[in-house]
């Protein structure tokens, strides 16, 4: 039978390639990533946490759980949207017996963003593989299914010996040091352009925000929403409608549930030049300043 013969030969041909790709998959999975570190961190100390930080790079690099006066952990990560915030909270909440505060940053893009439809959709694979949240799709079952990223990741770690799990034991991002800041860090216009999105996901995200608030309420947890400080070249250029939609969603949730509070530091003048790593991210210096503010909010609650 010619087809059987063909299949036999294809299998024979693919065998060394399969071995090679399996080794590639195995070695890529061995690269320590923040997702894995955070998952393991939560497994170990979820029961002792009194505060949990969620959100995107704004909180990952902007709120340092070690500097809070209550025991805290950061599950925030780059490009993490509200959907993943909800999924992570939902998956760990049963283990968080002492949890009193959830700190959720609300950024200019939060109500319009979806991780899977943006440039960061590869991250859905990492959430699935290393944090066990999100949907199963053909693309997120294997690292090598996203070959370009897998290749880069392999080279980044094994050839250039760079660290891909650059976060503290409490999950705080360590990469945005003021000393490493680029000369052209003041990129407000560029970042606003990047973060100005279509409003097609607005209702969806509003619903997810409600679900987060409801989940917190059901466990008697206070949901503290914050907008992190940004530089004037950023906030001066924001799209009025997108910003208004953000405030409208936040106010709606605050008004609906008694356990939700919102603090807006987006235009806070106390944050100066050296507090920023770029136009919408805090540097390590700014993060300490901002964490102190969060701590005072927690103390007031």
């Amino acid at each position, binding site marked *: 039978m010619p*087809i059987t013969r*063909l299949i036999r030969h294809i299998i024979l041909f693919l065998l060394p390639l399969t071995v090679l790709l399996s080794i590639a998959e195995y070695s890529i999975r061995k690269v320590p990533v923040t997702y894995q570190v955070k998952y393991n961190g939560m497994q170990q100390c979820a029961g002792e946490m009194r505060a949990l930080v969620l959100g995107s790079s704004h909180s990952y690099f902007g709120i340092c759980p070690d500097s809070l006066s209550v025991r805290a952990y950061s599950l925030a990560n780059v490009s993490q949207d509200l959907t993943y915030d909800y999924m992570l909270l939902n998956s760990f909440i049963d283990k968080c017996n002492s949890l009193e505060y959830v700190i959720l940053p609300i950024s200019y893009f939060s109500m319009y963003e979806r991780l899977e439809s943006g440039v960061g959709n590869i991250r859905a694979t990492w959430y699935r593989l290393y944090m066990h949240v999100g949907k199963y799709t053909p693309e997120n079952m294997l690292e090598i299914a996203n070959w*370009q990223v897998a290749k880069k990741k392999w080279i980044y770690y094994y050839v250039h010996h760079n660290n891909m799990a650059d976060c503290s034991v409490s999950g705080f991002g360590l990469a945005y040091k003021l000393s490493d800041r680029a000369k052209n860090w003041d990129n407000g216009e560029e970042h606003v352009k990047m973060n100005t999105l279509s409003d097609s996901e607005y209702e969806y995200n509003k619903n997810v925000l409600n679900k987060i608030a409801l989940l917190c309420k059901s466990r008697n947890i206070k949901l503290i929403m914050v907008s992190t400080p940004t530089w004037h070249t950023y906030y001066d250029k924001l799209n009025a409608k997108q910003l208004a939609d953000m405030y409208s969603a936040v106010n709606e949730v605050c008004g609906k549930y008694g356990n939700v509070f919102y603090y807006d530091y987006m235009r806070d003048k106390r944050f100066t030049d050296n507090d920023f790593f770029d136009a919408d991210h805090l540097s390590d210096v700014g993060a300490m300043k901002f964490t102190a503010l969060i701590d005072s909010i927690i103390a007031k609650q």
Partner: protein
Amino acid sequence: MLFNSFEFILFLPITFLLYWYVFKRLKMQNIFVIAASYLFYGFWDWRFLILIFITTLCSYLSGLYIARKTNGGGRWLLIANIVLNIAILGVFKYFNFFAENLNALASVFGMQLGELTINIWLPVGVSFYTFQALGYVIDVYRKQVTATHDSVAYFAYISFFPQLVAGPIERANNLLPQFTQPRKADYATMCDGLRQMLWGMFKKVVIADNCANAVNYIFDYYTTLSGSTLAIGAVLFTFQIYCDFSGYSDIAIGTARLFGITLMRNFNMPYLSVSIADFWRRWHISLTSWFRDYVYIPLGGNRCGKNRHIFNIAVVFALSGLWHGANWTYVSWGLYHAILMILFVLAERKIGKTIETVRGLPNLKMILNMLATFALVAVGWIVFRAESIGQAYEYCVRMFSASFFSAPSAEVGYVKSFAAIAILMICEYAQRNRNHVLDIEKNITNRAMRWVIYYALVIAILLFSVAQTKFIYFQF
């Protein structure tokens, strides 16, 4: 579903195994082909399926009715079918283009027509399957093809997934009979199909996608770059579009062979052409021959006066340009080639000796002819790639400025692309009398040696692949 996607890696083996092992009867195989093809196509957007279903059904029924009318009554039905298909293309592909131009024209005369454009989705590959359906109905009318009563075979003929979204635009007399007769699995044919797929993937992933990075950069920043860098941009785009499209065709033809179906050749090493007429015998053969048979010859072809002949060439190339997209750049690209062809005809040149007849290396005259043809074609691609005619003009002016002779910009990474292009051209030249470059079974009888070549290509694909990109010709 893209050929270079993870979904297709799963889809193809499953479809292949079910096709040969489960659906062994012809009818069942054809039904399965339709189901698999609709799944393949529906992956983009399920709504596209409605349009392809309507196009297929209308052309199938038209074929039957036209065949029944022996006294010429089928003519009106043929016209109705042509109008329907043109209307489908007109609405989905050209409506906004014509509306915008009408508006612009009206404003010249001081009239305001208001907002005429509509928000409509462009179904992937609509130009390909519409032309295939149209060709069938015309062939039935001309009695060059017998109208089929087998609706399942006909639906499989139009929707066959390997060639559905980017051709080759098949002809009923080649493809349709293959769906009405039992297919035989042939080991050598299927192996050759796999080899052709591998070569197509190499062209797409290693050459086209790598060229695309440099091309995008050069066309984005052409106002700041030297003439020599712009010339490199033009050359790289010339290879990008060829490797992208012919790579797709190779994968399509190779995939079809796995299912016991032979599709027509779509490219025959066009950058080894010795004249512009030779080029058009080798580039997108299925579309060129479609326009030749259904437009050029009915208009009178070359069997008429010189003026009429020139007119026929101009019409065919302008339509061919318009077929590629609703933009004046495509029409201009078509007209540019029309001018080149008209000059070729007026000079009373013949294609003469082509590359296939050469033993060993070509002589100097042939090399110069090939380079001249390549340069003319490359200039045409600038118009094709540009976003507007103004941009194409400005690009050409800057390219042919004094900085043409300066050193090209080192910012643009193109060394890897040129190395891959050199490999491509050497291989194509060496295999110029074969169906495709990896048709090597007769040249290299040692299987281990052949496998070394296959592995080398697979490793090149894995190592040199860049971000996954769509095939350019899907948009047409």
